[in-house]
């Protein structure tokens, strides 16, 4: 398993040159403000989706109003899904109300949404093959 933990200091600058096989470009839109960080997790299998420390890659990106993007290189070909949240207050948690509803922005690849919880891995899944992959998603608040 590949594992990354990357902190990007330059806004919107990719961490690897795009357009190589196995590269994954992630573009996260709909960010409401530049406070805190955007937390990204990439999963490579349904049984690991949304698990505890089961992500293939994790990124902390400085938040910026509008969009941030990043590129992760050298992912093996396969099926992946991404979850993201906007840790606006920098406490490294997705803050919630008393029913556990998010009070910070969040989103998934394919802009997938669950009806009674997070979406399924399948609903958020995309493929990385021979060509570089680009995933666009928008945060919801």
């Amino acid at each position, binding site marked *: 398993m590949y594992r990354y933990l990357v902190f990007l200091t330059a806004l919107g600058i990719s961490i690897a040159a795009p357009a190589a096989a196995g590269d994954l470009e992630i573009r996260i839109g709909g960010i409401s403000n530049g406070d805190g960080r955007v937390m990204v997790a990439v999963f490579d299998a349904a049984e690991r989706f949304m698990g505890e420390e089961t992500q293939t890659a994790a990124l902390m990106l400085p938040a910026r109003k509008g969009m941030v993007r990043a590129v992760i290189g050298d992912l093996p070909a396969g099926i992946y899904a991404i979850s993201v949240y906007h840790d606006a207050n920098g406490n490294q948690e997705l803050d919630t109300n008393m029913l556990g509803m998010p*009070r910070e922005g969040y989103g998934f690849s394919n802009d997938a949404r669950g009806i009674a919880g997070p979406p399924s891995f399948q609903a958020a899944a995309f493929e990385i093959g021979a060509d570089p992959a680009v995933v666009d998603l928008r945060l919801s608040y």
Partner: protein
Amino acid sequence: MRRRHFIAASAAMAVHSALEPGLLIRAATAASGDDWGPAFAAARARKPWLAGFETPASDRLETPRLDIDGVWPAELAGAFYRNGPARHAVAGQRYRHWFDGDGMLQKFTIADGRVAHLGRYVATAKYMAEIAADRPLADGFGTRMPGVPPAASPDAINPANISVIAHAGRLLALWEAGSPHEIDPATLDTIGRHAWSDETSGLPFTAHPRIDRDGNLWGFGYALFRGALVLYHIGPDGGLRKAGLVPVPDLGMVHDFMVTARHIVIPIPPLVFEADRLAGGASFLDAHVWKPDLGTRVLLVDKDDFSRVEWRRLPPQWIFHYGNAWEEADGSIRFDACRYDDPGVMFSLLRYVMRGEVRPASPAYAMQTVLRAGGAADQQVITDQASAEFPRIDPRRAAVRYRQLYCVLGLGRGDAAHPFANAVARHDLETGDWDLHRYGPDEIVEEHVFVPRPGSTDEGDGWLLGTTLDAGAGVTRLNLLDARRLAGGPVARAHLPYSLPLGLHGNFVGA
């Protein structure tokens, strides 16, 4: 990154999907061949009263000085705010239920014997996003919109379209199942979503909170995916005193509730939410199933301790609205309601009117109910001669023994020009007497609220204030009646030069 936390949060996301559609399966008729707009337009040409279901020509309606009849008393000074669905189509896609459209606030400013009007939409996230995109981005209460992705949260589809209430200096536009929106009382500018605390931020909140005589505001919300009711106690200063959760199996739509001196009283009609239906493409409304075998469960909660609950039972019935409730010395609880045998009116009349059709539905009887201390319950019909709705009381009798019940009535259905209320009435709960005024044949009567006469203390000393849509003249009128002599008709009227879409609830805020 704390994955576990994220997982827990996501798993609970559904709670707030009270109105979240979820899957991308759509009603087959929604995307193409939609004839609701043309059907309405054709019917509108024949039935002038359908003006009440039209989108206003402008996003801002303003008349600084209305034509008036009679004398608006100088001592009556303040603003009458109303709310209701107004934007009945988005980019030509007409909603299929009266309760869907974006809320527009109507403000009637009354001062020095004059009346001014201002109407503006609540600038919800949904409204602003749809204006910007010029296409539907959210489903409605009774409508699945084509090509609309599942909602991220209740507030993503919150149209803030049911009521408006002032509390602790804040004016709040209310929906059924999302955040209140704070409104500038002077300009009707939308200040933003209001949360009483981080813990309650974004939770469902009712259109029918209750303000007691000490200025406390009590509220509830139904969290269908969690199968729980949220309870709120907001102090007179506007600060959250406490919030709680009560699990309720087979939970469904709950529109209104009551408080007494000691209890929160929440009857739960057996209109049960089934998430699978939502996933299968049904609208939020159609994801509810009438299950009369469940009866109507009545939840009693101790106002001082939300963990102390009791259950009572009533026969199956659908109720939108209660007037008031109070508690006798022996613990018996008495309340009134406008009671339907079933929720058919919401699935038929209030849906198909959006295509200009009148479908029959069971009427609402004004009822009195006693929940006896020992657990038994009696219900008695006050009137079955007319369909009754929008019950209101003198707010000085909130949650205590009261005598006067005000409501609107649909009299003489057979010869009525339209299927809605045509009269306003007062019922004396002790003598059983009725005092009522029937408006003109073309007038649809909207909710009338009680306004106490400044300086008075006696129950019933004041006015009723309410709007009517005069379909014959194509205008909306504001009416003031002496609350002790409704039969005399309005003592003063103010006439808008245009009609407003029919609204739901409002409140008067004294200057």
